[in-house]
């Protein structure tokens, strides 16, 4: 037993080293921006660069649009499929895998080809970029929402609310969404992470996004890209922390006390 526990700790530490050593190395490297001293010089240069804020705010806006449009499109569809068209689940499942199969470069050429001329001349609009981001983030939004819907008794809850006189709007905002808080936050943050770091679509559609900016920095500079990498890690961890914070106290519908009094 003790031997087995020892091996568990060994693999745990090996895994931790695998992830933490490069991160620590990157962090230490990012502090060497000033010769002979450890400092946050590279970070201050990153923040001082107007392009950093410009590209980040652009990607941030695109991420917000993608999240709102992606969830508005996916959530009602999935509720409908779960309640009324369960046979369509495998089709949705297959669709959700397509972005993994079709490379972004193929996707973007397809988008440009279709949306460059009438009737949908959208090539110069950021909406096309948002549409592409929705496709890329669809597998993550789909899976997060699907997990949320599976974790609750959707049919029972909607029928109970209906029998109490509630319409669909009340059911969605008072029952379904509050019970999907964690999975929706997962969908939001995963989409945010994807959009913030996305490169191919932004480059090919020629938008000043954060992904291309990071790539440019990595090509031309040494310490600043390391600082950017650490910043993006902190951002991601911060978001995961927020998910944990938001999910406190949510324990599902198991009978915590056990028994049937």
């Amino acid at each position, binding site marked *: 037993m003790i031997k087995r526990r020892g091996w568990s700790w060994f693999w745990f530490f090996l895994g931790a080293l695998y992830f933490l050593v490069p991160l620590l190395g990157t962090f230490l490297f990012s502090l060497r921006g000033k010769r002979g001293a450890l400092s946050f010089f590279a970070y201050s240069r990153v923040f001082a660069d107007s392009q950093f804020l410009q590209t980040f705010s652009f990607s941030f806006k695109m991420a917000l649009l993608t999240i709102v449009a992606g969830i508005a499109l996916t959530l009602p569809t999935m509720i409908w499929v779960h309640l009324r068209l369960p046979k369509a689940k495998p089709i949705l499942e297959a669709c959700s895998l397509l972005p993994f199969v079709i490379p972004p470069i193929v996707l973007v050429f397809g988008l440009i080809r279709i949306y460059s001329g009438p009737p949908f001349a959208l090539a110069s609009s950021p909406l096309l970029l948002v549409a592409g981001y929705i496709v890329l983030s669809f597998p993550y939004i789909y899976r997060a929402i699907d997990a949320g819907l599976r974790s609750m008794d959707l049919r029972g*809850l909607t029928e*109970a609310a*209906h*029998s109490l006189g*509630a319409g669909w709007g009340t059911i969605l905002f*008072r029952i379904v969404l509050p019970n999907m808080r964690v999975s929706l936050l997962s969908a939001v943050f995963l989409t945010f992470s994807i959009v913030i770091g996305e490169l191919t679509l932004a480059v090919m559609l020629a938008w000043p996004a954060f992904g291309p900016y990071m790539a440019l920095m990595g090509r031309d500079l040494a310490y600043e890209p390391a600082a950017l990498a650490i910043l993006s890690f902190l951002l991601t961890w911060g978001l995961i922390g927020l998910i944990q914070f938001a999910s406190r106290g949510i324990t599902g519908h198991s009978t915590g*006390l056990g*028994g049937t009094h």
Partner: protein
Amino acid sequence: MAFLEMKNLVKCFGAATAVENFSLEIREGEFMSFLGGSGCGKTTTLRMIAGFEQPTEGSIRIGGAEVSNLPANKRGVGMVFQNYALFPNMTVHKNIAFGLMVMGWKTADIEHRVEEMLALIHMEEFRERYPHQMSGGQQQRVALARALAPKPKILLLDEPLSALDAKIRTRLREEIRAIQRQMGITTVYVTHDQEEALSLSDRIVVMRAGKIEQVGTPFEIYNRPANAFVASFIGTLNILDAHVVDAQRGQLLVEGQEVMACGPVPSGQVKLSLRPEMLSLGTHPSNENQLRGQLSNVIFLGSIVRLVIGTGSREIFLDTFNTPKLELPSVGSPVSIGFPREACLVME
């Protein structure tokens, strides 16, 4: 006058017919149970009343008004589900208040009604608990209070006790009946448990394969089953092949022995059904009939002792109370089964 009226209800799912020509009238304040095995259409019928399923054919009227095409949230029908379906993100108080809030009640009225409901289910101290902080029985009581709070015209219960253990089930079923009587609400209760149906209901609908087999009071269903299915579905029953000797007088031949039933009976080959508790050991002046057999087993069931008696090709169950003075013949010894002619249910 019928308060809930169903006329020629049909429900098809693709090629399969779940409910076929279901017609029933339920009086105001009546407690009606739908009883039957899995897939007999009882829950589908209940869901059609609730508005969760649209009838393929037929009509449903509540208080004289046609509701077949009304959505579930406009029918004014309260429903209690097998798995409670309490909103996990809301406390007991908010769960009960939900329907009232949706209907636009004033806050003070909502508070008053929630307190009333909590008192009704004796759960005032659980006001701020979440569903996951309560046991199954407690959750189902809250679900009942939630369904009753908006004062629905009809209360529907879909196997509400089947997820609970036996002791809680018995207690909760008494509570449900007491609350139903107190509020005088018309109630439809779906169950596959005959004991539940018999103990709760004013009337019972026994269903099989989407059709009604019999509608009657628990007493009628148990003592005067309409057919062999109802007879065998409700309680334990000895079913014996019999040949009618004199249909007018009710004279039968069972396992080569003569039995007198209440005539007239159908002629030819029939089924003779006997409830185990209607039979007694030995001879007694009130028992016109005697069947001879051999005691093959004794099964102890607590308050009841069941004797298994072989009569040629069949075995007959005989139930007797477990009293301190009970003396039983030894297994293998010949015994005589006595029963009055009123105990004989003769069916084609």
